[in-house]
């Protein structure tokens, strides 16, 4: 039987196809809990989970907190504005201080890519990545995979277009890792200023010259948010021009397969990367993604508690 052998979940790059399939299967079966009157199981009773967020987040932090509570774990939320990092404490020192209070899992979001590997070396508890810089966002990647699997029943052979600011997108990196490991074909498109040099090295992906080429006959169109907080000022002339060349609207969505799924990790800049007609349209699966987020995060919290297998 498949077993989950990792203490930490930092990047989908570190997981095998089997690991990812196990997490998705557990998430599918945990979904039932979320539709009950009593949305709670006693599984992680007595476990303490710290949500340590160095960057703003509504969806991810709430989703992790709800996931932990549905499994009966105790949660503590720490955000930058209220933490000692504003007094100059280093991440390493914060980690050791938190560890002294004996948590079982630290869920962290941090602006620096790779900071979770640093954290995992410092602490003995489990570490889950809730987003690190422009590196990975594994829980988002997994919930996207689950949402696609719900619709198509498989991931093998799907054509998935990812459009937008690839350079700064951890969502894109996690999706590329997960999708290619499970046999989907990934096509990337975005302004040349937002496409990393040698983007092909992100995985076995096809880099397209235009948005049209990427979404042609796609099963899934995933739009990325324009990350103004991570960009310099010079990557695009203005939002209107971006929207004209790389925005999804009912017209260019017709290029994709009939009934193709439209996805977005949120928060959405309406009218920039997507028109409101598409956001609220029948092909949009954006709220379904959020719904699946809770189940996926429950599966992640559950399986990391199994600890590392030598």
């Amino acid at each position: 039987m498949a077993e989950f052998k990792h203490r930490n979940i930092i990047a989908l790059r570190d997981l095998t196809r089997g690991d990812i399939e196990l997490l998705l299967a557990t998430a599918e079966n945990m979904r039932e809990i979320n539709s009950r009157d009593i949305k709670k199981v006693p599984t992680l009773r007595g476990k303490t989970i710290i949500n340590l967020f160095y960057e703003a987040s509504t969806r991810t932090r709430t989703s992790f907190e709800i996931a932990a509570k549905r499994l009966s774990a105790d949660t503590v939320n720490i955000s930058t504005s209220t933490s000692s990092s504003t007094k100059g404490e280093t991440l390493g020192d914060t980690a050791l201080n938190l560890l002294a209070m004996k948590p079982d899992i630290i869920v962290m979001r941090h602006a620096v890519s790779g900071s979770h590997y640093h954290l995992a070396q410092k602490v003995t508890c489990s570490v889950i990545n809730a987003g690190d810089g422009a590196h990975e966002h594994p829980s988002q990647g997994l919930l996207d995979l689950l949402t696609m699997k719900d619709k198509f029943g498989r991931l093998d052979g799907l054509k998935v277009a990812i459009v937008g600011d690839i350079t700064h997108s951890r969502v894109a990196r996690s999706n590329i890792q997960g999708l290619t490991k499970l046999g989907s074909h990934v096509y990337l498109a975005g302004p040349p200023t937002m496409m990393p040099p040698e983007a092909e090295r992100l995985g076995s992906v096809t880099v397209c010259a235009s948005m049209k080429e990427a979404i042609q006959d796609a099963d899934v169109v995933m739009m990325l948010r324009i990350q103004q907080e991570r960009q310099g000022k010079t990557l695009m002339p203005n939002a209107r021009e971006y929207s004209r060349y790389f925005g999804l609207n009912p017209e260019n969505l017709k290029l994709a397969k009939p009934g193709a799924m439209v996805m977005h990790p949120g928060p959405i800049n309406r009218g920039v990367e997507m028109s409101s007609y598409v956001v609220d349209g029948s092909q949009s699966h954006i709220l379904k993604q959020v719904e699946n987020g809770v189940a996926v995060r429950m599966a992640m919290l559950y399986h990391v508690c199994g600890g590392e297998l030598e």
Partner: protein
Amino acid sequence: MTENMTVLLDESGIKRALTRISHEILERNKGVRDVVLIGIRSGGAFLAEEIAKSIAIIEGDAVQVGSVDITLYRDDIKSHALRLPVGKTEIGFSLQGKKVVLVDDVLFTGRTIRAAMDALMDHGRPECIQLAVLIDRGHRELPIRADFVGRNVPTSLKENVQVVFNEQNQPLEVVLEK
């Protein structure tokens, strides 16, 4: 089959035991009104389907069948178990006011039954819960007993009792492993 295995019940033996249990369930509950069967994954869930078929033949009335996975409710959840997949709980109806017959293949320490009852309570408040098992092998660690038993088998703690199913999830035989 190796030498240290004994067959306790063969296919027709299992069938007779399940038929008798079905009659007893109907007798105790005076028919199938408000009765639902919930099987504990995986063996109990398969047996619940068999009992439902047999009740349909005897009474001409269908009973609702659900299944419960108790992984998330175990009291012996060591870190090892957390690495394993979680099974699916499928109860497509309300348990409010129902007479629930919980079905398991082998009754041993009673801890599985405790976990299953906790899981059921999270799905509503049944009028009562009754327990049907194919084999009762003794060694209870909790104050739990079965209402309907296929066969009582005295065992030692070193032995293992297993209900073997075929690929269509129908019970084939019950073996005692020494």
